[in-house]
């Protein structure tokens, strides 16, 4: 187990390195000069030169990349070009808000999809099944930001049940939950649609197994058969699907955060991209990718917990 963990963590290094390179060169090769943005449109050429030297932008790109990487391994993520504050401090201040949003969305998505998927599978091809399957398809076909705007328009503007935007006091307070509700539903619902379909398919697959027939024939009530025998054995595809959707979840969070002005990594990243703030953009992208990879690792551990036959070696 420990060696597995170590090996997986070591494998992270080339991936993070690659992501760092893609983001770094993606930004540098694009037109647009951060120095112009800091100095303002009227700045004199001498002042621009000075800022360039200060931030090391006058060196060749490859040298800049080398310097950035060597600082990175020493834990220095660079400073924000606009404010001079260390990028890592700005980024880590936002992690909690993004995790709060994504984890809640994930809980909503998993709960809904297991319940709906099970209901659909138990009533295979009946009316209930058709309604659920159609709804799942509908949810996963909704553009996240549009769903957010619709929910906002209905439940925050027309009927003011929820606040329009922003983050509330604390996660555990009533105010916090009210602020979190719409963004989390917006992020969770499309994902619930996709996952419910997988749950349904996986349950149907399991239901045709011999041990389910055995369980039924020894007279167990259907409820026990479904919860104890079928559901437990259908969880693996659910975990796989969820792990595969993690990048989309974090990507979707960027948009949902923009819709509801949620102060997370996404809003920070979007603003940094427009300001050409290299350090913040790179740090935020690296942290988001690291979150995705770590949650994937977590999914691997869930595999071995749900199915003891799977050993991590």
């Amino acid at each position, binding site marked *: 187990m420990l060696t597995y963990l170590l090996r997986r963590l070591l494998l992270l290094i*080339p*991936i993070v390195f*690659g*992501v760092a390179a*893609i*983001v770094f060169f*993606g*930004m540098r090769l*694009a*037109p*647009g000069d951060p120095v112009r943005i800091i100095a303002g449109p009227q700045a004199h050429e001498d002042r621009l030169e000075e800022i360039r030297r200060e931030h090391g932008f006058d060196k060749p790109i490859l040298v800049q990349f080398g310097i950035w990487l060597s600082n990175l391994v020493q834990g220095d993520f660079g400073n924000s070009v606009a404010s001079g504050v260390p990028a890592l401090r700005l980024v880590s201040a936002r992690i909690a808000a993004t995790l709060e949003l994504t984890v809640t969305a994930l809980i909503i998505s998993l709960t809904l999809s297991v319940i709906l998927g099970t209901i659909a599978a138990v009533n295979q091809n009946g009316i209930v099944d058709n309604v659920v399957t159609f709804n799942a*398809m*509908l949810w*996963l*076909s*909704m*553009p*996240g*930001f*549009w769903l957010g*705007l*619709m929910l*906002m*328009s209905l439940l925050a*503007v*027309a009927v003011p049940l929820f606040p329009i935007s922003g983050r509330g006091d604390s996660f555990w307070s009533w105010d916090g939950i009210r602020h979190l509700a719409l963004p989390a539903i917006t992020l969770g619902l499309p994902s619930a649609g996709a996952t419910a379909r997988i749950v349904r398919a996986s349950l149907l697959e399991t239901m045709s197994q011999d041990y389910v027939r055995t369980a039924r024939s020894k007279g167990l009530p259907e409820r026990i058969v479904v919860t104890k025998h079928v559901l437990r054995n259908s969880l693996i595809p659910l975990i796989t699907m969820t792990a595969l959707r993690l*990048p*989309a979840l*974090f*990507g*979707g969070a*960027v*948009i949902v955060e*923009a*819709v509801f002005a949620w102060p997370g990594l996404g809003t920070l*990243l*979007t603003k940094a*991209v*427009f300001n*050409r703030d290299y350090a913040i*953009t790179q740090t935020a*992208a690296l942290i*988001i*990718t690291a979150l*995705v*990879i770590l949650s*994937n690792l977590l999914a691997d551990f869930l595999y071995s917990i749900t199915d003891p036959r799977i050993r991590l070696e």
Partner: protein
Amino acid sequence: MTGRKRLIGTWFKAFKKNRLSILGALIVFVFVFVGIVGPYIAPFDPLKANFRETLRPPSLEHPMGTDRLGRDVLSRVMHGTRSALYIGFGVVSLEALIGIILGTIAGYFGGIVDTVIMRIVDMMLSIPALVLALIIAGTSGGGLFTIIITMVIVSWAYFARLMRGQAILIRQMDYVEAARAIGASHGRILLRHVLPNSISVGIVLATLQIPWTLMFSAGLSFLGIGVKPPTPEWGQIIVSGRDLLHSAWWITTFPGLVLMMIVLGFNFLGDGLRDAYDPKQYTKG
């Protein structure tokens, strides 16, 4: 040849059985049709402001209402279908081309080529596509061309992964072994055996990638990266109604509904194609 014909016949029958996929095909057809002729049949000029008609709610004259500048929302949506068509089909055919070539090569040859390509694929798949697209397109300032290139960069890896799996599967088939035994070159085996036998899986993925691309590009427009403002584009139209949710709900609602319908259509079609293609379905009856 008759064998192949029979296969297509069975396949078509399985597809026809699924009424939702027929509906999906219909929606996709309407989408393509409006994308081609929309700009000619739209009732109003999508760009011309009319200040006597600002923020009109839906009516017979303006079924989707008018926006802040008095432009007919329906006409704007119809014109926007053109760029959606470009983005949807343009992006997916390019990413499919790159993904199919790299994935097939990786799966067929294996070894170091495979390792290198798949490491890059792993990398691409672990960065959220939206984050990467935001960074690339955001720093280069948007525009239709940038959006298309960006979306190809962030999504070719899905095709590569899928086609690699197919190539590995087909490489072990007896007919490939036979072709090799009679001295067929790698190029010939790839073109005559591996590609034709894995392309249908690619088509299914392409059908499911198009709606994803449409939603994704609308999402990018929402963040402020996309086709430049006066050009009618769905994401842009939806965003333009954002601050008017309390007074002019129609500007956001209708274009979004249209986008959702089209995404739904492609998803139904893709599902139908996948089920029809899945050989297990035939035996299950």
